[in-house]
């Protein structure tokens, strides 16, 4: 037995890697469908958007790249669906250099397909990508058309019907940033102080803890923390709008809710490993103390 624990304490990490691979791959092939409990920051974000009025303008900023797409894509999709259902008008932009635009285009195309009534330029507009995130944000605070002279199709921003009456961020009711790194934080530390616009952030799980400080200080309205936050948002959305269920139950497409199955299994596996590691550690320590005595 002591030999077993000895081996566990110094376990080759490749066994752990194998375990991780198996426990994440299995639920993709065989889904479980576990329930999701919602948390305060996500509910705050959801209710804030719910309280907006028809015709209000929301800015959705794609501040992430393909590497965090499994986390951020479902957030952007969920918020856009909510805007479409509530008839909020949304302005899309991308400030992340490495593929933010491609992701924005994908998500917009997907939502266009789901809501055929949406009119480009009237109900939403895709302004495309602009380099120099912080400077662009500050510029948008003063003049959106100045920061983005044309939309993604090359149409002058000032001629787009939606942008009539939307000169700068002061006429926008909310910024939602799906973000992987610093850019999301700049919305809070630079744009929010500049124009006082409410900000909701959808950060990757890793940066989420940092934003609690901003939630506490009131600089942030709400937050969708990582894939769990996205899954929570999906479940809030499905509860409020049953007509959305069809987007969240197809077998081929990926949703954050499905991702949570793999998450749960792997979290369980890691916790069991922690338990095993500690039991082994104490057994071994006792054994070596005995040996010394």
């Amino acid at each position, binding site marked *: 037995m002591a030999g077993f624990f000895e081996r566990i304490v110094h376990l080759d990490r490749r066994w752990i890697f194998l375990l991780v691979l198996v426990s994440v791959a299995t639920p993709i092939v065989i889904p479980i469908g576990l329930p999701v409990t919602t948390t305060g920051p996500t509910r705050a974000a959801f209710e804030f958007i719910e309280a907006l009025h028809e015709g209000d303008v929301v800015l959705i900023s794609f501040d992430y790249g393909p590497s965090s797409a499994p986390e951020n894509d479902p957030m952007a999709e969920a918020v856009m669906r909510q805007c479409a259902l509530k008839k909020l008008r949304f302005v899309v932009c991308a400030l992340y250099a490495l593929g933010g635009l491609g992701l924005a285009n994908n998500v917009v195309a997907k939502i266009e397909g789901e809501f055929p009534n949406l009119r480009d330029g009237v109900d939403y507009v895709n302004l495309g990508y602009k380099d120099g995130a912080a400077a662009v944000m500050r510029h948008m605070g003063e003049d959106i058309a100045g920061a983005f002279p044309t939309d993604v199709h090359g149409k002058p921003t000032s001629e787009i019907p939606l942008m009539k009456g939307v000169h700068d961020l002061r006429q926008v009711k909310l910024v939602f940033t799906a973000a992987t790194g610093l850019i999301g934080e700049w919305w809070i530390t630079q744009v929010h*102080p500049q124009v006082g616009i409410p900000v909701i952030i959808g950060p990757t799980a890793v940066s989420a803890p940092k934003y609690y400080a901003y939630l506490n200080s009131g600089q942030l309205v709400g937050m969708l923390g990582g*894939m769990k936050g996205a899954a929570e948002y999906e479940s809030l959305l499905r509860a409020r709008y049953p007509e959305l269920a069809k987007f969240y139950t197809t077998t081929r497409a990926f949703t954050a809710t499905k991702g949570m199955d793999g998450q749960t299994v792997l979290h369980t596996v890691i916790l069991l490993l922690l338990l095993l590691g500690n039991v082994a550690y104490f057994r071994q320590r006792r054994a070596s103390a005995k040996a010394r005595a």
Partner: protein
Amino acid sequence: MHPPEIGVWIAAFLTIACLTFLYKDNPFFRFAESLFAGVSLGYYVGIVLNQTLLPNLFAPMRENFGQNWDLVVPGLLGVLLYMRYAPKIGWVSRYALAIYVTYYIGLDFTRRIHGEVLPQLARAILPLSSLDRATFFSLVYVLGVFSVLVYFFFSKEQGPITRRISRLGIWFLMISFGAAFGFTVMGRVALLIGRLNFLILDWIYPTLGI
């Protein structure tokens, strides 16, 4: 269902080659890693040229030189960076670096005090008068902020009281680190889910015709 296109096969091969690094270093990984280093650098050549230099430097100068004549200067400063390869006058590259660094550091300076120190302090000023759960939570918060700050005192030898407070600060730090670690596992698993989704849903299933 169409069989996956050649691009999917390339991506699948590179994905698996990278994953083999977990087992051990091997020629497939080394191939993928070298290719990645080259492709990524080439990628940024394309990105920087098309998304930074063309729209910010060349296009404005070509379209309206009168308004943008001053952009000659950053172009020249950019060239100065390469002067380090000229042995005698390598020192002129310092100008470019000094301007770049101090501008952003200046920007950072006010951002730290204006955007971080003051708002975070404002947040820690909480009334602790009533006896309820909210006050207890506020007290925990206040203790946390100030004990961590005490831990960061460098120039004063710790007395018995400050030593205890700073120990408390370390405990708060440990809670925070543990919590943040646990919180992050999710995000990382999400990435792996993304890759395995690709391998299973976009490559294996279509190849097998499922």
